[in-house]
């Protein structure tokens, strides 16, 4: 019976039915007696499972009721297969009769048409076929010429990543400087892109995907961080040093970049030329920097522009009204601040990020 009383007390405590003094006393007992504390925790969990069960089954009943009611009112659209089947059964005979009549009529009419239509010589038909074939060949030729003109030979490569699902990408300025054509490609497809603005000082460039086949993403899985990151912090990158996406892992190794540059930081990680423009992520899946250079004589010594600079660059781009005429949706550019990848294991983080990273091709 003592357990019974205890459970009862726990339940009154959980439901907030205790008087203040009683509650205080119970909390004291709980904090001094681990067994009681354990029981409270365990019972809370069980009760929440029980109430969750209750709520879900109530919702299920409610959903069934609503469904039945709406179906009776005919608000759930036509339930095609079911209706078709019953109609078929009902009108099978009628359909057969109708079909036979239709068949006979069709035969009769086609006979009539053949009889009454003017005669055309075979030569004329052959001539027309020839003309059409000839025209087709010409059109194909022209199309081929157009295609070959539109496929530029790309001679420079880098990496870029989305900062807004509408198609805004960040890469390094040195990747796209003086480019005539820019294409970007992710795991889903290849798209034409154009340069919105270069910021050579920060070595950043804003691109926009400008291609009808591009399907905008709603939201991004990662966030762009405004903070600096700490010395020794684990970092990872996903970029395109080669035509395949490559994952690398390292750590923040110095708070400044090349020549005590405070706008960037140093990290120790493997990187190659195509990694320019690669986002640097912390464990929470926040972008804290963009790789822009590496020390040739020292392995694994890589520098990255702090992501803060992206915000600065975007602010100045938005303030420049002359850019409005180039891209009217620029005012709606919105960078995600929070990451949806916190506490997610690395493989899943990579899976969710990879579609948002692009190889940047230019000529």
């Amino acid at each position, binding site marked *: 019976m003592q357990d019974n009383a205890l459970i009862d007390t726990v339940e009154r405590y959980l439901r907030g039915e205790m008087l203040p003094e009683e509650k205080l006393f119970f909390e004291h007992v709980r904090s001094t007696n681990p067994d009681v504390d354990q029981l409270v925790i365990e019972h809370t969990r*069980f009760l929440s499972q*029980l109430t969750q*069960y209750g709520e879900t089954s109530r919702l299920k009943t409610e959903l069934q009721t609503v469904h039945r009611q*709406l179906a009776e009112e005919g608000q*759930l659209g036509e339930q095609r297969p079911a209706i078709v089947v019953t109609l078929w059964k009902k009108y099978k005979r009628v359909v057969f009769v109708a079909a036979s009549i239709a068949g006979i009529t069709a035969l009769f009419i086609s006979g009539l048409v053949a009889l009454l239509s003017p005669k055309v010589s075979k030569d004329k038909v052959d001539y027309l076929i020839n003309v059409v074939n000839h025209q087709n060949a010409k059109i194909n030729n022209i199309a081929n010429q157009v295609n070959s003109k539109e496929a530029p030979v790309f001679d420079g490569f880098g990496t870029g990543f989305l900062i807004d699902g509408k198609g805004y990408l960040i890469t390094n300025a040195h990747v796209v400087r003086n480019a005539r054509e820019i294409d970007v490609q992710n795991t889903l497809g290849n798209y034409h892109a154009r340069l919105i603005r270069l910021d050579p000082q920060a070595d950043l460039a804003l691109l926009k995907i400008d291609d009808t086949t591009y399907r905008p993403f*709603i*939201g991004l899985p990662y966030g762009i961080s405004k903070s600096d990151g700490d010395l020794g912090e684990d970092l990872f990158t996903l970029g395109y040093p080669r035509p395949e996406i490559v994952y690398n892992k390292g750590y923040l190794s110095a708070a400044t970049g090349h020549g005590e540059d405070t706008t960037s930081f140093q990290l120790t990680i493997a990187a190659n030329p195509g990694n320019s423009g690669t986002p640097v992520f912390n464990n929470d899946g926040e972008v804290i920097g963009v790789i822009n250079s590496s020390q040739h004589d020292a392995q694994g010594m890589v520098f990255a522009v702090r992501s803060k600079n992206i915000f600065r660059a975007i602010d100045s781009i938005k303030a420049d009204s002359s850019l409005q005429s180039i891209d009217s949706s620029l005012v709606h550019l919105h960078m995600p601040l929070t990451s949806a990848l916190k506490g997610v294991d690395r493989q899943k983080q990579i899976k*969710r990020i990879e579609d948002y990273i692009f190889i940047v091709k230019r000529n």
Partner: protein
Amino acid sequence: MRTDTTEQQLLEGLALNNRKAIETIYKQHYNMVQALILNNSGYPDDARDIFQEAMIVLYEKVRSGSFELNCQLKTYLYSVCRRLWLKRLAQMQRSFSEVENLRDTVPVEDELERHEQRNRDFQVMEQSLNSLGEPCRSLLKAYYLEMKSMVEIACEFGYTNADNAKNQKYKCLMRLKKIFSQHIK
């Protein structure tokens, strides 16, 4: 994209199990889901099951305090239903040839993983309650789910007083806990 206010109100209504809100969401989005299922080798009953499961996923999301979908309700429901149906088809080893694959989807994998866990818990609880038998099952439901008082319960179940009912409830609860913990393992 932020959830707009009317959709937010609908979600808040759903969190409270509000009939009107459920009905509105149903009217607005059921036909879209039905079209998806019917066009991809499903039947109207499948559409009903999938849509209702998606509503439960949505309910779990709003119950956890998140009224922000970061996308339109339509996109969210479509994404969840699409995922659920793909899974169901894979289990039945049928193929999927989405006719309207131009529609936007959002990633919902993590939420569906959580939902599956909850779904398992739900089924274990249901089994446990069923194997508990009567009157225990109704007694526990009356107290914990319908929030009836012990006096009411004593009256309804024919116990001489509230204390007797409470004793009985305690015994039933202990049995349920035991069965549940055996099932969950």
